């Protein structure tokens, strides 16, 4: 009986994201047939591109790694009821700090790695904390401040790698740091495959966060703050403290997303390498699709990564352009935002009805 209800609840929470994915795929199908290709064949090629063989699976997981981490960071903020839109800036600052730490902190490989992870986490966290502090101190809306701080962070990181820390050794002077010493690279999980230790870090973090949110008093405080800040305050939860903590961890984990990309796949910070693939926004979508459940966010992140790697495979092997994936993602975004607006609207409506609940 109880198990059955739990299952029902689980299914219920899955219905909406699954419908969104299904409608996304259907819209994609329309677009594919518009360009005159066979829908089933194209989707088959996409599937193969994402999960067709072991190599593609690992490529998908490698791509998913930063998306999972971004999604987890955002999930914390969303759970606390704050809209952190600054994952991109937090990730980029994390990445550049991690690269510099790995380059310039003396010591063995493991020390460099730990220093880089710490630096990446702190840089992202503090950047995010700045927005949180401005909200609590000066009532600067987080949604806006985090969004605007992205530009500052991305441009500042760009400056760092095009001036003081630029790698001038190569023939073409790209905006990038020197390459990190091989001892400080995150190990690959399988020989010759792109998925690296960062994926394990992301999954462990997803499980840890799930446990923290679900079973600990800190998690309880975060969730209650997100559900109803008045209730949280009434019950003795320190609103400001919990908000700042959530923002710090949210940004810190986004910083880790940049860090593991640098340490595990790029081995240096290259300007644009994290912003152009849109990791931050895909991560945002993953968190929203999964309703900020950490485990669900990880799964959604992997699916979204698969959509992207699959689309690349599709482009390699068919005439269908890569942009089909953008169409599908676009529809997903539409549905996810529609869901948010619907919920928001329902809440508003209910709030109006409160006094009618006699």
């Amino acid at each position, binding site marked *: 009986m*109880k198990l059955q*209800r*739990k299952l029902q*609840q689980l299914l219920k929470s899955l219905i909406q994201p699954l419908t969104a994915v299904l409608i996304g795929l259907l819209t994609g199908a329309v677009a594919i047939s518009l360009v005159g290709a066979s829908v089933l064949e194209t989707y088959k090629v996409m599937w193969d591109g994402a999960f067709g063989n072991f190599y593609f699976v690992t490529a998908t997981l490698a791509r998913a790694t930063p998306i999972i981490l971004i999604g987890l960071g955002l999930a914390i903020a969303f759970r606390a009821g704050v809209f952190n839109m600054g994952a991109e800036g937090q990730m980029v600052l994390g990445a550049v700090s991690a690269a510099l730490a790995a380059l310039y902190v003396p010591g063995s490989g493991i020390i460099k790695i730990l220093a880089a992870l710490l630096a990446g986490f702190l840089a992202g966290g503090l950047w995010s904390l700045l927005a949180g502090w401005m909200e609590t101190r000066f009532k600067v809306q987080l949604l806006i401040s985090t969004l605007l701080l992205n530009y500052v962070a991305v441009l500042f990181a760009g400056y760092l790698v095009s001036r003081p820390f630029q790698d001038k050794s190569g023939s073409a002077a790209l905006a990038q740091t020197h390459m990190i010493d091989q001892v400080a690279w995150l190990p690959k999980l399988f020989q010759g495959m792109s998925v690296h230790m960062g994926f394990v870090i992301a999954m462990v973090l997803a499980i840890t966060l799930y446990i923290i949110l679900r*079973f*600990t*008093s*800190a998690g*309880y405080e975060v*969730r*209650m703050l997100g*559900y*109803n800040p*008045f*209730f*949280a*305050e*009434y*019950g*003795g*939860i*320190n609103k400001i403290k919990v908000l700042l903590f959530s923002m710090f961890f949210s940004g810190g984990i986004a910083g880790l997303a940049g860090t593991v990309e640098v340490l595990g796949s790029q081995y240096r910070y290259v300007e644009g390498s994290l912003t152009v693939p849109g990791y931050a926004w895909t991560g945002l979508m993953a968190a929203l699709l999964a309703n900020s459940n950490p485990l669900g966010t990880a799964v959604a992140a992997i699916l979204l990564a698969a959509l992207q790697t699959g689309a690349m495979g599709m482009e390699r092997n068919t005439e269908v352009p890569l942009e089909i994936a953008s169409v599908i993602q676009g529809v997903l975004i539409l549905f996810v935002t529609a869901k948010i607006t619907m919920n928001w609207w329902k809440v508003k409506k*209910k709030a109006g009805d*409160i*006094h*009618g*609940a*006699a």
Partner: protein
Amino acid sequence: MTYVLEMKDMSKKYGDFLANDTISIHLKKGEVLAIVGENGAGKTTLMRMLYGLEQPTSGEIVLNGKTVKFSGPHDAIENGIGMVHQHFMLFSDFSVTENIVIGHEPKQNGFFNRKAAAEKVKELSEHYKINVNPLKTAGDCSIGEQQRIEILKVLYQGADIIILDEPTAVLTPLEIEELLKTIQFLAEQGKSIILITHKLPEVMKVADQITVLRNGKVTGNVLTQNTDVEQLATMMVGRELQKLTDRIQLDGDPLLVVENLTIGGKNAKPILDQLSLTIHRGEIVGIAGVSGNGQSELIQAITGLRKIDSGSVHLGDTIFSGKTVAYRRNAGLAHIPEDRYLWGAAKEAAVEETGLMGYYRKRNFNQSSFIKLNSFRKLVRGWIDRFEIKTPSLDEKSGNLSGGNLQKLIVARELGFETDFLIAAEPTRGVDIGAMEYIHEAIIEKRNNGDGILLVSSELSEILTLSDRIAVMYEGKIVDILNRNEATEERLSVLMAGGNENEASTKTTTTA
């Protein structure tokens, strides 16, 4: 005499749930029919069917001898049925006149004739002795005035049968008096009134005939002259009400001491003005006052939810001023909040999570910051048994509980802290009589235990039933404190309206 309205064997099913089960009522011209029942008894459903907002599953509505079917409120209004809702539906930026004539504006050459409209409203207002200022903006009107606008609107639309849905819930005692007079006057003028309420004393004052509902069924139909409050309550609840436990005389030490508490307002007038109040152990101090006179701010200042400008709050030897909410709660404060949805619960959270607030910090339920959910669930199940909280499971969303059940959960949670001091703000708002009994009983029990209680309620009867002393608040000050035996509803009403004590005492002496 024939009936102007009969509803015969009305039933309404929502899925498997039978909200109305073959309910019949009848109403004569010029008669006041009260429909009473606890929350969820089916009063509202019945009226929604009459007003065309719901379609009956079965049954028949007979109006002036003819069977009618309403597809919407529009039909009902056209057939002379008007409804004054519990929540006013006024355009706050429009004038009183515009709000009344809306939909049926007097026209001149196709244009809205404001002058004629205002005159009509004035006429109507004088004819029915319902006092409004036609030119005032509706948003500036008091709650009582807004209700009068609603009643006039219904009359303007030509209603002969007027449904009033819980009309006194939002009014001050004096406004209630006035409304009851209006109802009687309207009935004398030949209007038929259906009064939906759960306040029995009012029913006894104004109704000719009373129909009692319980669980969707009629449990009684009586003439007012043949019944009394006790009999009605028994029919409503389905059993006899218990007498409250006797209060033990206690002369406790001062427990909560509030001194010269001041909170500034936006204007020159402070919200709380040098307010001092002492509550002793084993004492219930009730705060009476028209809402908006600083009661909410006083509670927030004591609990730490609001900053104060000057003054101090102590609980026993503990200084509260400048301390966090958590600190004060740990020092022995529990708080039933006035608004259960705003402060008391998170609608999205599970029932057990709403119950967990505060407990998750306690050692019994927290092991190195992991919450011991299993031990906590035992506690919650205890509350559910004791207060008969109806919930499908502990995982149910708090927002899905009915208002009364959620209130019981909150009361159980706050009583469960077993603190020395409790703030109970509107502890029984929107709960049915059965639950009210439980909550009152629990509060008295806590008092007899030697704990101190500050009770804030907009129900004077609740204040009078429970309090040892009653402090009347007006414009951020405590204007008077009366002992239990010297307080009467009348005396309190005068003080609450800002009248001075001399007036009040002369009034009581003349009536006595």
